[in-house]
């Protein structure tokens, strides 16, 4: 294989060429109520070639390995269509390495019967709870064996597994329908989805309780975010702004995101780190073969760094950070996050709660999206805070705001860091990418909460 690739890469007159190959397999199980809705297995194989000529890219993806040299030619030809001027990629040393996944209990090797039995038990618990009309369970595990080679001499083989589970309980009473859910995942370790019986019971209880919960009155509140939702905030609101492909060609945005500028209080540290072992967003090399490292995005409230591919790093005169990632061989790598989190401080949850006269405590993730400056994310669970104490359960709420103002408005950061491994990230048509995000409890002043 290595010789075949080396041969295909020779003599095209391009500035840079890379080849990806991928072999994958996946298992997916979906329940809808008591019925097994879908159970499927999949295999895939394919690859792509990316060529850089005079600053612009050609990209060819394929399922069949034959005619590799012609495919490289096509990518080079495409790249020649538009010359944007010379571009040097950020220099990285050629790497030859093999990365194997080390799991105690690899989910992709667990028999289907075991997976089904476990999911049946969660489903049974939720379905037998009061007022639960239906459920959803979405389970997916997969393994990918990826090979990367480039015209600079890198040759990297990496194995990557991933696991994702979502449990949803749907409660109904008269015409009222409400749902609650639990979303989690792992780097393929099956134990992450075992022993969730109590959580399944709690999800069902919460869905039923929402039926009689009031809506929050829309407006501005002091809010406390739990570690899961604060992690989503770190990812959605700030993380995406740190992705340099949004910034590197946009001079106005570069002025907004000037390194050294203050974005929050001294207590605020936001970090993206693919090198933390065993999280969903962990990896050793990105999809351009760049070795990964810990990246401080905000240190003590000041913008310190951002996430780069080799191209964006070179254009901005900064270092490649190892954040060029593709969800699979059908797509070119783009700048993405890995494990993104707000670092813990010293405030306790009780202290944060104590001086709030009227506010909202928002927990758990339901969804989140961003348009750089503005974000919205929705909580799976919310409670009113009155006189420094948690009060009634609320219908699901949506929070929105301007990220710059909101970061400044974080006035307390807790001591209880938790990493959330559910869901996945979408960008540029590439979704879901395995990532994780986290935070301790944080408190935000003047946050717009939507309701009726």
């Amino acid at each position: 294989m290595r010789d075949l690739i080396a041969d295909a890469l020779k003599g095209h007159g391009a500035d840079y060429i890379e080849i990806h190959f991928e072999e994958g397999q996946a298992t997916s199980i979906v329940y809808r109520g008591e019925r097994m809705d879908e159970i499927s297995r999949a295999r895939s194989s394919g690859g792509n070639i990316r060529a850089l000529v005079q600053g612009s890219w050609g990209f060819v993806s394929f399922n069949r390995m034959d005619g590799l040299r012609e495919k490289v030619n096509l990518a080079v030809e495409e790249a020649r269509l538009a010359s944007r001027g010379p571009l040097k990629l950020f220099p990285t040393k050629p790497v030859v390495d093999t990365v194997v996944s080390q799991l105690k209990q690899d989910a992709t090797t667990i028999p289907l019967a075991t997976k089904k039995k476990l999911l049946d038990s969660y489903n049974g618990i939720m379905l037998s709870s009061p007022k639960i009309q239906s459920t959803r369970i979405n389970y997916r595990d997969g393994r990918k064996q990826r090979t990367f080679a480039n015209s600079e001499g890198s040759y990297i083989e990496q194995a990557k597994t991933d696991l994702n589970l979502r449990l949803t309980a749907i409660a109904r009473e008269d015409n009222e329908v409400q749902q609650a859910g639990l979303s989690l995942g792992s780097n393929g370790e099956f134990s992450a989805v075992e022993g969730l019986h109590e959580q399944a019971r709690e999800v069902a209880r919460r869905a039923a309780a929402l039926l009689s919960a009031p809506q929050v009155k829309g407006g501005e509140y002091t809010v406390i975010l739990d570690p899961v939702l604060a992690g989503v905030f770190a990812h959605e609101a700030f993380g995406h702004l740190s992705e340099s492909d949004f910034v590197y060609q946009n001079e106005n945005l570069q002025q907004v995101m000037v390194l050294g500028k203050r974005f929050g209080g001294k207590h605020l540290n936001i970090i993206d780190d693919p090198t933390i072992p065993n999280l969903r967003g962990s990896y050793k090399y990105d999809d351009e073969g760049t070795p990964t490292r810990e990246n401080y995005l905000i240190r003590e409230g000041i913008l310190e760094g951002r996430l780069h591919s080799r191209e964006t790093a070179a254009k901005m005169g900064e270092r490649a950070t190892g954040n060029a990632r593709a969800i699979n061989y059908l797509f070119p790598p783009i700048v993405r996050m890995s494990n993104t989190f707000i670092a813990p401080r010293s405030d306790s949850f009780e202290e944060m709660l104590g001086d709030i006269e009227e506010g909202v405590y928002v927990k758990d993730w339901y969804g989140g999206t961003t348009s750089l400056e503005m974000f919205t994310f929705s909580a799976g669970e919310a409670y009113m805070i009155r006189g420094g104490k948690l009060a009634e359960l609320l219908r699901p709420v949506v929070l929105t705001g301007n990220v710059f103002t909101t970061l400044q408005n974080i006035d307390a950061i807790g001591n209880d860091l938790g990493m959330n491994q559910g869901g996945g990230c979408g960008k540029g048509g590439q979704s879901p990418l395995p990532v994780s995000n986290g935070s301790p409890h944080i408190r935000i002043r003047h946050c717009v909460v939507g309701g009726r």
Partner: protein
Amino acid sequence: MEHRLAAEVLRSARKGAEQAEVFSVSSRAMPIQFEANELKQVQSKESSSTALRIFREGRLGFATASGGGDVDALVDMAVETSQFGSTAGFQFPSSRNYSEVRIFDSKVEEIAMERMVEIGKELIARIRGHTPDILCDAQVTRGTSTISLINSQGGEGRYDKSFFSLSLEGILVRDTDMLFVGDSESSCRPDFIEIDGLADRVIWQLEMAKKKAAVSTKLLPVIFTPVGVASALLSPLVLAFNGKSVLEGASPLKDKLGKQVFDKKLSLWDDATIAYGVGSYPFDDEGVSGQRLPLFTNGVVTNFLYDLQTAALADTQSTGNGQRAGGGFPRPDISSLILSGGDVSFQAMVQDMKEGLIVEQLMGADQGNLLGGDFGGNVLLGYKVENGEIVGRVKDTMIAGNVYQVLKELLGIGQEMRWVGGVLQTPPLYCSNISVAAKGS
């Protein structure tokens, strides 16, 4: 090639199965991407996948393979899953003759890469002619795909489809203020795509957003533009009309067949037969003929969307809406939706408003309780109306509502129908009493 593989898979699968079906897709696409006003990347993508569905001891098994041609592995995976699959309540259809639906235009293949690059440049030049400091990302895509289906009951079908699309997203940054504008067009026929029409709509957005306007927290009337309808109201409706939601009793419409639920002036139908519609097909991904299916007529609920298995469980017929996202497991889904037009011009709606909003893009609209019909989110692009005139763009504003309340009685239905994203044709809708929450009020 794909056909031979399909026949081989079918033969092999039948050895252990009562019935079998092979669905194959092969597609080629060429997206040309512009970033920050310049050509960034030219891509060509080829992919093919084969999906095998079997009934074995009465249970459904399912597996897919993309890339590799290993027939035995595909059959083994389908057999493995069939041990746990649900009971198959239907037969694979034996249809072989389907009415023609026009969805292929060979001109798509004749469009040179260079011409596509020109189209992108023309579009960006028009937008920058209006606002020189805007940064545009644009994509021009052409593609073709071949779908083939064969099953053990004698059913067989095959069709080719073409695709052409043009999209633009512009961002204008001033200090920490960001304005996002954009729109897209897609069709099976490249000459249905209008560069000027798309450019005009984006320029209109830029014009309306020139000034900023303040809004306070209260109930206000809202005009959803066609893009706004797709962005805010579509998802809860699609979910409620999905036969699966109805079957499990989770859809608020489950017992509403024949009942008045929406405004009397409003009708919605799903139509797989529209010539050159990107959602059109002669047969769905299970071999059932596509059709024009009324979902509600004059506000009265008439049909739900079904695939074969869901229809069997609900004791009804498939509506030809079995679809496989990415070649996967078939599920009920829309082909193209059409919401009936009305008799009020957009201008008249605006003039009728004393105070209200026009919503084009809602961010995070899908995050609420969709099953219950809720929508809500941040107004990514929207304008304030005062005394019958658009006075500027709103920011830091959320709206929230429920489609069943909002669409029960409309203040007006627009005359100006248009396609959004190739899958929904809709007029603007003028709605009353939407909850608006704004920062600083």
